[in-house]
């Protein structure tokens, strides 16, 4: 088996551009999912029944449907329904954000529910109001505990952006396919791109682990 990496060397800028789109899409998705997911999570824990029931249904629906299906539906079906068509990047951003927000919501819920009831009682005994207790005692501790899970959410987000290739978002995976197709050198191309993904994802999780170890004691009651 002879290997020829020259197509990669020739198109390295093209690939780098793809990496840039991957990272941009990932960060924007993570940001959006964090905001939406936290709102949903808080609504699920502290909201009234009319809020909780649709939120739970939404979260469970996102758990049931593959990302690929949501991406494709957003890009192809929504324009037919609404008459607005989106650039693939924005379709991907919306689809991924809506999907991953459901997972963030569950993480937020688990974090809040893991706080010992004794902490709430101690805060009540001091005379704090329920809102104050959530803001000053429950959430700060819960946020620390959620850190490892948030780290894995970022990792999942980056991996899910690769699926956006099916709606032709020009991120790293799509560009890898393009070069592989043009150069007839799929093994070299996909192996190198695999390495690139690994090099972005692997250190990220290690870093989050290390950061968490330092601050974990702030969440341990």
């Amino acid at each position, binding site marked *: *088996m002879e290997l020829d990496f020259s197509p990669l060397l020739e198109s390295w800028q093209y690939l780098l551009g793809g990496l840039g789109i991957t990272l941009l899409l990932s960060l924007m998705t993570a940001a959006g999912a964090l905001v939406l997911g936290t709102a949903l999570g808080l609504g699920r824990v502290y909201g009234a029944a009319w809020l909780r029931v649709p939120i739970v249904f939404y979260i*469970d*629906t996102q*758990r*049931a*449907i*593959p*990302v*690929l*299906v*949501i991406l*494709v*539906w957003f890009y*192809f*079906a929504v324009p*037919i*329904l609404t008459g607005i068509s989106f650039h693939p990047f924005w379709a991907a951003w919306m689809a991924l954000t809506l999907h991953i927000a459901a997972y963030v919501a569950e993480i937020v819920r688990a974090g809040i529910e893991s706080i010992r009831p004794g902490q709430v009682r101690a805060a009540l005994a001091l005379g704090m109001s329920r809102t104050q207790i959530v803001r000053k005692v429950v959430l700060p501790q819960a946020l620390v505990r959620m850190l490892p899970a948030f780290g894995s959410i970022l*990792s999942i987000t*980056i*991996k*899910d*952006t*690769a*699926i956006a*290739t*099916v709606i032709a978002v020009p991120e790293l*995976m799509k560009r*890898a*396919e393009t070069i*592989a197709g043009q150069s007839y050198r*799929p*093994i070299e191309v*996909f*192996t190198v*791109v*695999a390495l690139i*993904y*690994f090099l972005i*994802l*692997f250190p990220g*999780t290690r870093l989050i682990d290390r950061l968490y170890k330092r601050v974990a004691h702030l969440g341990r009651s």
Partner: protein
Amino acid sequence: MNLDWSVVWDHRNELLHGALLTVLLTVLTMLVAVPAGIVLALMRLSNSKPLALASQWFVEFFRNLPLILVVYWAFYVMPVLLHIQFSAFTTGLVALCLNVSAYNAETFRAGINSIRKGQLEAAMSVGMSRWQAMRQVVIPQAWRRVLPVLASTWVSLFKDTSLVSVIAVGELAHVALQIRSQSFRVLEMLTAMAAIYWLMGYPQAKLVDWVQKKFEVKE
């Protein structure tokens, strides 16, 4: 916007076949990936440094790659490396197995580690070998902690089978997208695809909740 939903009914057999293939892929993958995960976990926890390292690298590698990339990579690399022409189905299955084994390895490792060392030591002090202690005392207890995570991995896997559609494996996503291209009934087919996944996936997600509640570990 004129919708014609009969296209879904007309192709119901193909869609059913696709759904069955999705289930088949899920079941077969788990049949391989659960034992593989156990083996990898035990390798990682063993006293042999090379085995532990090999397991660690395998797991870190496949947990840090997008599955869709692994699918493509397997599709192009396997025939060349192994000199056999595999079917798309087999290729997709291999990719799924590699991916899920790595996640299961971590699940089993965490489950085994969560059983206090004292249990292992107590068993060994009675005279059991390390291996016997693991089998008789640690692993039976670890199952309780592992089952909820496995259930959740199962549902993720079920959804991830949709990714092998990119190499033309005839599971649900591929079938639905094919019908869409042929019939031009985009909204109907995409919605039907989402609905069928939802019908299959929603109960599974609820089952996972039940499993997690049942096996909740109260410290």
